[in-house]
């Protein structure tokens, strides 16, 4: 899965925004890097979990929980390509 093609992350002075051209969501600074990865390339839940573990130095179960929350947010805001 991946974020829709028109999703972009823009950053300014420690703030991050995910935009689709029509709407925008402020991204928590803590996970901005992961949002950027999801916007740039396709990912599986497992690969994203691995990246979150490495990026934030957290355990696998913590990472799985964060990834699940992120995917829910993206799905709820209709940001995933497979939402259509």
């Amino acid at each position: 899965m991946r974020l829709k093609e028109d999703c972009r992350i823009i950053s300014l002075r420690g703030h991050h925004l995910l935009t689709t051209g029509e709407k925008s969501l402020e991204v928590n600074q803590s996970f901005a890097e992961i949002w950027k990865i999801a916007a740039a390339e396709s990912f599986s839940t497992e690969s994203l979990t691995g990246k979150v573990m490495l990026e934030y130095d957290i355990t696998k179960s913590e990472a799985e929980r964060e990834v699940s929350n992120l995917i829910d947010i993206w799905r709820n805001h209709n940001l995933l390509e497979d939402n259509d």
Partner: protein
Amino acid sequence: MTDTVVQEAFTALVRRGLRTGEDESFPALDDRQWEAVLELGKIQGVTGLLFSGVESLPSEVVVPEQIILRLMVEADRIMRRAEQVSKAAASLIKALEEKGLHPTVMKGPAVAALYPDPRLRESGDLDIFLRPGEFEAAVDALSLIDYHKDPDGNILYSWDGVPIDQHPRYFDLHSKKTIGQQADGSPESQLLMLSLHIRKHCMGAGVGLRQICDMAMAYRALLKQSDIQRLLELYKKSRSSRWNLLLASFIKEYLGDVPLPYADGTSLPDSDQLHKIVFSGGNFGHYDPSRRDALKKGGASRKIDTLVRMLRRIPFSLRYSRSELLPFLISLIRGNVV
């Protein structure tokens, strides 16, 4: 009247965005003043430069969160628009070339490429030039149905969602006694084209800071490749020497460290007259309240307003574009009547 601190902060951010004044100090602003800076950016068509300028500010400068969010939203809009215009330019040029025509992209994407971040230069329409013989042929070549001619002889249409302004003149010169209209692709021609375009708008509804930033970026990128003597000769032949000194004075005073085609010690005029034009009406004069009303009404109101503005600018035109004034007026009157 704009608060002088707001004006100072605004031009400092523009210089930071252009990378012509990055080490300057920056004044402390309150929330109201930051709002005023953003409003100036919108009026002058340089919000993308403000984004870039704010990005470069030292971390100890306090920028309100709502300003940061608005700048991000605006910068995203500007970048998406720039991509759309760039794609439209590529497909339009390809379509014309496939029909054996030879279009030249003017201003817009061509000059955006000269900016530190081309995506942050605000794009409006796309300007192209086609020489006589090919100008009218483009209508058939593109199978255009919905198009019209403006009083200045340009053909206006839409391509891939982008307004296209197709010019029969490369240089905004109506006087026949100056130079020809060949776009030879040289850096000197490009500089002259941009300069005369700004002058033309100053003779009428007005011009904003965005166009002058274009000129500054063009000077920075193209002057080193230019034959300066040839450039100054072109300015002289096009009867725009005095105008270009005024433009250089404004760039030097407000846009920071930009190379200019004049030797050190050259006396430059006071730039107040140009400053007044830029800051009274903003981007193409659209933010002057009476101009805004005329544009909303359209039709005859718009044309009358344009004429009134040209008449008001006669003192400026007599000083900086004397040989161009009458031919330009005649051309516009003819364009409105025919």
